[in-house]
C-alpha cells in the first residue's frame, strides 16, 4: 500500500529560485537562507520518496482571473515550468504519477472534496522553488510529483479547517492505493510577508515561530485560525500558510519535528521551513 511518511513545510519565494538559477547562493545575502536547507537535502536523500504530493498556489500563471478553482489537482503526465514574465526557470520538467493522481482525484470527490482535475497545466515558482531548495539542481527530479494548486490569491482562500480535513482525505486516498509507494507531502508558501501597497515589507517572526511550534503541538487548534489573523498578523500574502494545514492534516496526530529553519529576509519574505515525520515511522 502507498503511505505518507513525512511532511515538509517550505516557503516558495521566487527570488530563492532566481538565486539558485543564477548560481549566487553563496553570496552574503543568500548564504544564511541556503545554509538552513543543507540538512534538508541530506534528509531528502535519506527519505527518498517515490512520490511528492505538493500543495502550492499558482500565482496567476496557470490560472488568471478567468477561472479560479479552490483546489486543482494535476492529473497530466507532466507539467512544464511556466514563463512567469522572465522566461521559464531552467529546471527539469515535473513528472506525475498519473495513476496515483487519478486515484486520488476519484477518492477525494467521493470523499466530498469537489476538486478540479487538471489534465493540462504549467507550474510556476510556487511548485518548482520547493523542489529546488530540497533537491538542488539535478538533471531530473528524483521523485514523481502530484501537484495540488490551492487558490490563495482571491479572498477567501479555503479555511485552515478545510485544508486540514483535505489533508486527511488525501491520506485516506493514498492509503487505499495498492502499489507500495513512499509519499512525502509538501505544504508550501509563506511565511509572513506582504507584497502590496503601503504596508509592504511586513514581517512577524514571533507569529511565524508560534505557527511552526503549533504545527507539532496543536495542529487542530492551529487549523481553526480565522483568515483575518493571517491577513493582519502575517501580511496579506501570509494567508498562503493555510496550505501548510493540508500537509499537516495528512500526517499522524503525533509527529516528530526533525528539522526547522527560519530566516529573514528573502526579498520581501520571511523564509520558513519544517520537516515533520510520523512518529510510528522507523
Amino acid at each position, binding site marked *: 500500500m502507498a503511505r505518507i511518511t513525512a511532511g515538509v513545510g517550505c516557503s516558495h519565494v*521566487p*527570488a530563492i529560485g532566481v538565486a539558485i538559477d543564477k548560481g549566487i547562493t553563496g553570496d552574503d*545575502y543568500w548564504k544564511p537562507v541556503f545554509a538552513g536547507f543543507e540538512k534538508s537535502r541530506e534528509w531528502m536523500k535519506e527519505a527518498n520518496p517515490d512520490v511528492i504530493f505538493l500543495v502550492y498556489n499558482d*500565482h*496567476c*500563471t496557470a490560472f*488568471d*482571473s*478567468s477561472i*479560479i478553482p479552490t483546489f486543482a489537482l494535476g492529473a497530466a503526465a507532466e507539467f512544464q515550468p511556466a*514563463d*512567469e*514574465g*522572465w522566461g521559464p526557470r531552467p529546471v527539469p520538467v515535473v513528472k506525475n504519477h498519473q495513476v496515483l493522481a487519478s486515484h486520488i482525484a476519484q477518492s477525494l470527490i467521493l470523499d466530498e472534496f469537489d476538486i478540479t482535475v487538471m489534465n493540462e497545466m504549467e507550474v510556476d515558482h510556487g511548485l518548482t522553488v520547493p523542489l529546488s531548495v530540497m533537491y538542488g539542481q539535478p538533471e531530473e527530479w528524483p521523485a514523481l510529483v502530484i501537484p495540488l494548486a490551492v487558490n490563495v*490569491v*482571491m*479572498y*477567501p482562500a479555503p479555511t485552515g479547517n478545510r485544508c486540514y480535513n483535505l489533508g486527511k482525505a488525501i491520506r485516506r486516498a493514498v492509503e487505499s492505493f495498492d502499489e507500495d509507494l513512499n509519499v512525502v507531502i509538501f505544504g508550501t508558501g509563506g511565511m*509572513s510577508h*506582504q*507584497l*502590496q*501597497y*503601503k*504596508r*509592504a*515589507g*511586513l*514581517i*512577524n*517572526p*514571533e*507569529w511565524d515561530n508560534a505557527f511552526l511550534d503549533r504545527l507539532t503541538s496543536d495542529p487542530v487548534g492551529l487549523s481553526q485560525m480565522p*483568515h*483575518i489573523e493571517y*491577513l*493582519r*498578523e502575517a501580511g*496579506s*500574502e501570509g494567508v498562503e500558510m493555510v496550505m501548510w494545514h493540508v500537509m499537516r492534516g495528512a500526517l499522524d496526530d503525533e509527529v516528530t519535528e526533525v528539522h526547522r529553519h527560519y530566516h*529573514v*529576509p528573502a*526579498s*520581501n519574505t*520571511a523564509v520558513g521551513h519544517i520537516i515533520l515525520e510520523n512518529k510510528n515511522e522507523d
Partner: protein
Amino acid sequence: MTDKDYEDIPGTFVFDADRARIGYHLNQFCISLGKAEGREAFTADPEAYLDRYPMSPEQRQAVIDRDWNRMLELCGNIYYTSKLAAYDGINFQDLAGLMTGMGREAYRKMMVDGGRPIDGNRYKSEWGED
C-alpha cells in the same frame, strides 16, 4: 452586505470577490504580459493593446502613468500588477520600494534589518486612519 472584518488593516487591500470583479479587465491586461506574445503586442502598439481590455478610464490612466498604488486602489492585485512591473524591468522588491514611497535602498535596508515590524501596523487607527 456582510461586514468585512479585514478592512481595518492599514496600507492593505484584501483582494476579495468584489475587488476581483471591479479589477477584472485591469488584472487580465496585466497578466497577459506574463507571456511573450502579450509583451510583444503591447510594445508594438500600447494604445491598441490596451483597447483590447475594457477597463475604466481611471484604471487605464493608472496603467499609462504606472501609478502602482492607484492601480491597487482601483482593484488591481499585486500578483497581476507585478507583471506590468516586470515588463518595465522592475522586480517585486523594487516595486515595494515604489509602493511604500520609501525608495529602493531604504526599502531594501528595512528588509535586511528584519522587515516592517507588526507593532503599530495592525489597525488603521494606529496609522491615524479610520
